């Protein structure tokens, strides 16, 4: 059936791992926004949650790097990071192999993807789940877009992946929720960690909230790298959600640069009930 929930959020490891180092009020504002996103997700009564993330060499390496991949297992594990460092204990996360297989089969009609029967979650998925499904009681369908090791699939392929996810969700009886996690501008895991291009972020979020396909597809990785750091390659995850909900407006519930978290922290949801926006094609 049609997607019951869609949204985007940040996944930076410092959001949990360095929570004690942040300005308390800034941290609390972000955590409240995550709580609001959790309430909206729960209110949609989903049977499963697809998490489109940009993982960081927890599962996929340059010896055999898929541009797009989806998990197909009854359970997963995570985080791979040191639990004390990330602030999240190792746990088992439920999946749904049957549902994954049906979704993947449908996605493959439009997009070339890999599937993975083994998947170790890193902060790209674990940080969002820590806030959104802290009891780990909702089956997760992990999906990954290579945003780390160039060459990267071009943005219009991420768009096609999002469209394929929508068709796949439409084709199954389960109530599917979808989130994209990552970005936006940041220079993670470098000496420039903490740097954030707020103007660039706000411009992108404006385009994202209007589901402005033409504007979002016009970003070039070479320019994004200069303006917004290598972490900006992760806009693919946000755009996938836009493509999966094409024509529906996005609501940015929270955006605030928090340098110690190394990212402009973002919480957004798609208003699936709103009248369709005019096409930007």
């Amino acid at each position, binding site marked *: 059936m049609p997607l019951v929930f869609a949204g985007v959020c940040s996944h930076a490891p410092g959001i949990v791992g360095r929570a004690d*180092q*942040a300005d308390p009020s800034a941290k609390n504002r972000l955590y409240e926004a995550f709580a609001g996103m959790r309430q909206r997700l729960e209110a949609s009564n989903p049977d499963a949650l697809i998490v489109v993330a940009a993982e*960081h*060499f927890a*599962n996929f390496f340059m010896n055999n790097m898929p541009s797009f991949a989806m998990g197909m297992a009854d359970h997963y594990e995570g985080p791979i990071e040191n639990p004390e460092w990330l602030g999240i204990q190792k746990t088992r996360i439920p999946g749904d192999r049957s549902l994954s297989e049906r979704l993947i089969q449908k996605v493959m009609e439009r997009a070339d993807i890999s599937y993975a029967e083994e998947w170790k979650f890193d902060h790209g998925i674990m940080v969002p789940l820590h806030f959104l499904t802290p009891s780990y009681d909702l089956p997760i369908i992990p999906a990954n877009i290579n945003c780390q090791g160039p060459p990267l699939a071009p943005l219009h392929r991420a768009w096609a992946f999002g469209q394929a996810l929508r068709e796949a969700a439409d084709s199954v009886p389960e109530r599917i929720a979808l989130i994209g996690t990552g970005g936006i501008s940041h220079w993670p*895991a470098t*000496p420039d960690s*903490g740097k954030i291009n707020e103007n660039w972020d706000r411009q992108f979020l404006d385009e994202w909230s209007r589901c402005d396909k033409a504007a979002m597809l016009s970003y070039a990785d070479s320019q994004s790298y200069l303006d917004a750091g*290598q972490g900006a390659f992760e806009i693919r995850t946000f755009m996938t959600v836009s493509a999966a909900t094409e024509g529906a407006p996005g609501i940015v519930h929270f955006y605030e640069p928090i340098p*110690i978290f190394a990212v402009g922290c973002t919480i957004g949801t798609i208003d699936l009930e709103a009248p369709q926006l005019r096409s930007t094609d």
Partner: protein
Amino acid sequence: MQKFLFELNRDEEFQARYAEDRRVALAGFDLTAEEQQALTEPDIGLLFHLGVNGQILMHFAALHSIEWQDYLQRMRDGLAVHGPVREGIYAVTGYEGVDAHSTRSGQTNQIQGGN
């Protein structure tokens, strides 16, 4: 180097072998003497300079319980000693630092050990 770190970061059994004898754990990987030294010491700054992807290196630093600010400083020190990153996508663009940035944003951090 990155393949070794990828395997190490995701495999607790491998981590145990590495903890027992770092040199032995490197067996089977095609590494120069410089790379072996960087991996066993471990020399975070040299690894960054050699082009190890920051995400892989970040997890490796966490494995060694290297505190965040210390991790960032080790990368800066590595660049100061060895020069710019030899290859990869990690150009350093210049940044005022988390403390100054936070203060400018009206945030008061609780960072221990400087920036």
